[in-house]
């Protein structure tokens, strides 16, 4: 009789444990499914997590592909990345009105997915397609431990600058970490944003955006407060760089122009060459207002306006 009671008790206990395990498995599956929808694949042999639908490319606000996070009503509402470093230095990194683009990676010390980015950035400067400057932004010292961030970011003055700024997180309306924002320095606007599970995925998204020309760099010349133009405007009429006759704007070294832009440049180059204008021709630059005619002699038409 006692043996029967023991068997019944054990059976009941096993059944109860089975119910509990089933519940845990179901809960775990729901969590993994939710993470997977965010682009995070926790499988050890995962070939690489898919990026989310929030691709790193410019999207019109409010459209069908609009950013599914709290709204960004004005992509031109950008601020410099100002805060402190984990070492306690004050720093302000310019993201607008400058020649370089900025890829700001918003990371925390606690999120597991962020660890992969910290590891990728600690040992050396990662290759950012298009030459954008990579900056890691964490919340400020009131929310993150500078010592922990310093340990994650590596030695001071390391490969990737780290700025601790809760103001940047709030201004850019960062929904979660990790999160990346691509800011065109020339256009002074956010031209892409999104998230992925690893640096390689982010890099691929940026490479696609650069190749497609959606990063927007080169569309406008940065102009400083003093009103002087930045890159793309020859400093003097005599400073004629070698190379193609036409450039649509300041394209940093190594930047890959889109196929359409390259085709357009080639067509314009050919048209100019047909009228006798080649690389370095002074008529291509400010201050030399001469008619674009092959027989236009020196001094013909000082100002054709």
């Amino acid at each position, binding site marked *: 009789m006692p043996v029967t009671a023991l068997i019944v008790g054990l059976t009941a206990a096993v059944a109860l444990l089975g119910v509990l395990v089933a519940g845990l498995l179901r809960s775990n599956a729901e969590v993994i499914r939710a993470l997977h929808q965010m682009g995070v694949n926790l499988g050890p042999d995962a070939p690489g997590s898919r990026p989310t639908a929030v691709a790193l490319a410019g999207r019109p606000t409010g459209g069908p592909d609009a950013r599914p996070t709290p709204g960004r009503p*004005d992509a*031109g*509402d*950008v*601020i*410099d990345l*100002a*805060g*402190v*470093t984990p*070492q*306690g*230095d*004050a*720093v*302000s*990194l*310019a993201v*607008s*009105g*400058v*020649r*370089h683009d900025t890829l700001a990676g918003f990371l925390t010390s606690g999120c597991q997915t962020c660890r992969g980015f910290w590891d990728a950035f600690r040992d050396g400067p990662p290759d950012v397609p298009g030459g954008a*400057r990579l900056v890691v932004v964490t919340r400020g010292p009131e929310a993150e431990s500078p010592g922990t961030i310093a340990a994650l970011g590596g030695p*001071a*003055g*390391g*490969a990737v*600058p780290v700025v601790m700024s809760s*103001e940047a997180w709030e*201004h850019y309306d960062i929904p979660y970490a990790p999160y990346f924002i691509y800011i065109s320095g020339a256009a*002074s*606007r956010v031209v892409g944003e999104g998230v992925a599970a690893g640096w390689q995925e982010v890099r691929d998204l940026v490479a696609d955006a650069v190749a497609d020309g959606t990063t927007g760099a080169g569309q406008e010349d*940065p102009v*400083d*407060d*003093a009103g*002087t*133009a*930045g*890159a793309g405007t020859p*400093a*003097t009429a005599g*400073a004629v760089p070698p190379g193609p006759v036409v450039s649509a704007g300041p394209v940093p070294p190594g930047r890959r122009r889109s196929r359409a832009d390259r085709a357009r440049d080639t067509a314009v180059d050919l048209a100019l060459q047909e009228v006798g204008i080649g690389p370095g021709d002074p008529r291509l630059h400010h201050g030399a207002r001469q008619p674009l005619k092959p027989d236009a002699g020196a001094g013909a038409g000082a100002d054709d306006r």
Partner: protein
Amino acid sequence: MTTTRAQIAAMGLAVTPPAGWEAAIYRRRAEGGALTYPVLHAATIALPPGRGDYGSGLVELLGPNDLFVALLEFGAVAAGSPLFAGLTAVPGLTPDAYRPQQLQRTIQGQAGVQRFFTSAGRSFCLYSVIGTLTNRVALTARANQILGSVRVTAGVEAGT
């Protein structure tokens, strides 16, 4: 486009970088019992890591429309010396102050200027480099723009 300008401050120094400027205020870690003092860097290009206090590693990257400004503190003892006592505030600059001979290291086309001053009982060297001497008028105006935003307060000890 909306752009907000933010002031950064540390170690009794503050600066509000205009649009297109970067700035940093730092103090090197003291080694071997040496004293270290705050340094302020500002430039119209991205501040590269590992640059020297006088801008080595940065000035080589300046374009013709770029400039670099540094304030380097020398400690309270120097504040009473004739070299630093002549000017008692962050000085403004004039275009003719920039000379190629003032560069820490000569770079073709560039020009520099160095001024020593005392503010809030603290002694500083102001060092600035412009990308090209031919643009000195416009670039001096930009240098004065950021120098006008610099604030110095008293009571900062040297790092040891």
